[in-house]
């Protein structure tokens, strides 16, 4: 399991996930900088992603589509805010319409990626995702469910946690 820590701040609406990989920093950066590699992990196996545009420069766009088992397609985009290979990347992540244009009135999140070298040619990657509001998180998750992005186990856990109703 590569994940070494998860910090959730409900007040600030941020999720910070830190992972350790047994690969040098340049190799780990490549999973973000190479669109063919990005396609292999961004979407779950049942919703493979196709990256149609990939410009990792400030102001640049990354556009992708995920295709589900029923042939359903979901499009998304990133707007790159800052990039400093092979250490940092910050972008806004949102949903797009069928033509790949950003959908208005859909939530976006800001994702910040920080890579650092560890001893023994290993790399630490910290990803912080920040949402503007609880509603934005809720909407992101509902749309994520539609795109098959969240595991069913997460939904069951969430459900069983609900206070019992009379």
């Amino acid at each position, binding site marked *: 399991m590569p*994940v070494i820590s998860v910090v*959730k701040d409900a007040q600030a609406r941020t*999720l910070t996930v830190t992972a350790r990989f047994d690969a040098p920093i340049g190799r780990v950066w490549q999973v973000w900088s190479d669109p063919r590699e990005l396609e292999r992990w961004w979407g779950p196996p049942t919703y493979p992603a196709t990256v149609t545009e990939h410009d990792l420069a400030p102001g640049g766009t990354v556009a992708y589509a995920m295709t589900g088992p029923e042939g359903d397609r979901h499009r998304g985009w990133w707007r790159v805010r800052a990039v400093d290979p092979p250490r940092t990347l910050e972008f806004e992540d949102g949903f797009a319409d069928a033509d790949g244009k950003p959908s208005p009135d859909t939530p976006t999140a800001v994702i910040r990626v920080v890579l650092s070298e560890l001893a023994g040619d290993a790399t630490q990657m910290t990803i912080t995702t920040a949402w503007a509001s609880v509603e934005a998180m809720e909407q992101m998750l509902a749309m994520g469910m539609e795109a098959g*992005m969240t595991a069913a186990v997460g939904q069951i856990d969430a459900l*069983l946690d609900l206070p019992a109703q009379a």
Partner: protein
Amino acid sequence: MAEAERADALFHALADPTRRAILTVVLQEAHSVSDLARRYPISFPAVHKHVGALERAGLVTKTRHGREQRVRGDVATLRSAHRLLDDLEVLWRGRMDRIEQLLADPTEGARQCP
């Protein structure tokens, strides 16, 4: 409602693409059932049935406004912000696991150093 019944209601509610679409819409803004029926190529009774399934799963609430019933995604009670973060954690753990597999793939290493 027992936990198993609650799980059944949730999965039933989320299994249908029209219901997921309705949920996404009413999470942004409350809509009347007739508004919703106009948005989708299905009948008013069919929309009513979908909304009922979402309501039984605790995903939406209905309030009466004069002659209309307005449907709203239940942001406050559906999940706390913390629980949302739990689900989003699942998403990122999956991504990190896939990155690890990718980095361990010898054919990818070969591509990197031609």
